[in-house]
């Protein structure tokens, strides 16, 4: 189990390798990698800046991992979330979930990203040709989280 918040980029395969190291009982690893897009609606995005709440953000991610462990049989989870200034096509976030069977790994991975997007204190600021602005929370993210209730 590993939760990291960092400015540096990461290598997804290295995250998976670390999750599985020394184990032969894992049957499935599901990963999610979120990237910075170069546009939103009609705006062209040149960069994005991510802010977080040191201390609380780690605790919130840990809670999400604990909740996933209660719901599904999981063998390991890794979350990496980057902060600071990022440019289009860069990686923002990665989740990796290991389980004996794929069904649980798929569900747990989707559950965790839905909760991360609505419960973990991160905030995005977009830099566009029309200036910088904070990204508004999306109703669809809230609906995605509520389906797990």
């Amino acid at each position, binding site marked *: 189990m590993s939760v990291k918040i960092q400015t540096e980029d990461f290598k997804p395969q290295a995250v998976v390798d670390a999750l599985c190291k020394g184990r032969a009982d894992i049957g499935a690893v599901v990963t999610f990698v979120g990237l910075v897009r170069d546009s939103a609606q009609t705006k062209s995005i040149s960069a994005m800046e991510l802010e977080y*709440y040191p201390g609380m953000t780690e605790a919130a991610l840990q809670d999400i991992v604990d909740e996933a462990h209660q719901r599904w049989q999981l063998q390991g989870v890794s979350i990496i979330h980057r902060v600071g200034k990022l440019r289009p096509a860069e990686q923002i976030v990665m989740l990796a979930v290991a389980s004996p069977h794929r069904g649980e790994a798929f569900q747990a991975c989707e559950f965790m990203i839905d909760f991360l997007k609505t419960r973990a204190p*991160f*905030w995005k600021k977009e830099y566009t040709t029309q200036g910088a602005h904070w990204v508004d929370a999306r109703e669809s993210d809230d609906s995605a989280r509520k389906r797990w209730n």
Partner: protein
Amino acid sequence: MITVLYFASLREQLGRSSEQLDCPEGVTSIGELRTYLGARGLPWSRVLHVDELVMTSLNHAMADASAGIEAGDEIAFFPPVTGG
């Protein structure tokens, strides 16, 4: 003393990221603290006014207006989160 933190758009609009306060008379919950801060006038009254645009936490856990606060607590105000 309590510590109050502000993040993202709230931090920018209020022009500060944190402050320490002696817990004011009659302020025993996050909701009461929010009302107290809102009474500072602009921009506080405007920024803290709309419920849907302000989330709150107490000692690193999400908390609502009814959460009780006391000396030593860390309370944060921030907009709805947009990570991932």
